[in-house]
């Protein structure tokens, strides 16, 4: 399967962010989207996720389940963690796994163990540190298999061990034929093709 973007143009608040952007990613490939602040890295991810409408051009996925949209085959990990402070770690993850997966999901205890949060399963999410919140969001990617991972600064707030753990998870995802598009400033920890937006900055 392949993700294809051709001549994508993005306009936010009446201002053109980028135009004429073409990219592609094949199965098992990671793309690191780089660029200075405000160059449109997050906008590009949200365009792919269908959360913004492109002002021009098209984004499509080839292969995969043809009746599903790009968004429906993707996991989106944004700046915001989509966690409810009133719910426990396990309740937060179970909800997303039920809501996104509809039954065929991996047990939540497994996913929590994979991101190193097994000991905190019963803790309300309000008490998690920033790094732990991030880890919990990463567990969501594992709970339900989706071929395309859209990651916005995924290693933010992760400690060194966390980054290594996440690099391992990304490698496993790519080895399973997945795709990763990640907006990042720092190194991702895996081999990734660079897609630079907005010239040299």
């Amino acid at each position, binding site marked *: 399967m392949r993700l294809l973007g051709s001549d994508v143009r993005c306009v*936010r608040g009446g201002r053109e962010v980028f135009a004429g952007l073409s990219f592609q990613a094949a199965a098992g490939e990671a793309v690191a989207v780089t660029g200075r602040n405000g160059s449109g890295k997050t906008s590009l991810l949200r365009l792919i996720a269908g959360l913004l409408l492109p002002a021009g051009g098209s984004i499509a996925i080839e292969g995969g389940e043809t009746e*599903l949209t790009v968004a429906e085959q993707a996991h989106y990990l944004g700046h*915001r963690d*989509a966690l*409810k402070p*009133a719910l426990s770690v396990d*309740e937060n993850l179970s*909800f*997303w796994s039920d809501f996104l997966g*509809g039954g065929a999901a991996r047990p939540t205890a497994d996913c929590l163990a994979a991101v190193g949060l097994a000991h905190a399963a019963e803790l309300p999410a309000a008490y998690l540190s920033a790094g732990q919140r991030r880890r919990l969001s990463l567990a969501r990617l594992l709970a339900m298999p989706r071929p395309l991972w859209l990651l916005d600064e995924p290693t933010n707030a992760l400690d060194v061990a966390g980054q290594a753990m996440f690099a391992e998870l990304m490698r496993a995802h790519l080895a399973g034929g997945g795709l990763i598009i990640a907006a990042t400033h720092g190194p991702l920890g895996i081999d990734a093709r660079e897609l630079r937006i907005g010239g040299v900055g």
Partner: protein
Amino acid sequence: MTALGALIRRDIRIALRVGGGALIGVLFFLTVVVLMPFAVGPDLVLLTRLGPAILWLGALLASLLTLDRLFTADHEDGSLDLIVMSRTPLELACAAKALAHWIAAGLPLVVATPVLGLLLNLDAVATGAVALTLLAGTPALTFIGMIGAALAVTMHRGGLLLAVLVLPLSIPVLIFGVAASQAAIVGPLPFGAPFSILCALSLMSFVVGPFAAAASLRHGLD
């Protein structure tokens, strides 16, 4: 169906936990209705006459009070993005959220009504009638209010906007809710006619609300 069930369970759970909105609505309802006899005075006949209207106004304001968090909470923490992206149609997800909101915030108002009826000198029949009309009418308030809540998502401090948008739309519900209650208490109109219209308004809002809310959420994405 698992997805919608999970969404309903999560929203109810959050509403019932500390800091959730479920209790706030009932407390507000209680406060408004308890204050009324003090404002109107100890005229029992007058209280009986005003009773249904006071209960309905209280319920309307109480359901508005918590509605503005229906989508903004999910928007602020990024959950709304994932809900929009998911394979569950957004219309159904909206309906599920509204249903959860009604169970957590609307149903307690109906349950509290008999207690408050005592304060307004309503007899058993009248209290039953008001509770029944609230049971039939409050879902309409939630599902109509959901449209305003969806429109207010992208704006900061959308709460006031919500009230301005939603209150005019809920006037028919208020009119027929109070009319049905009055009909049951003093007549001379039959109870059935206004009550049927109230039920019809609710059923209509079940259809219109989710589609309008989903459309405005999609349009307001940024």
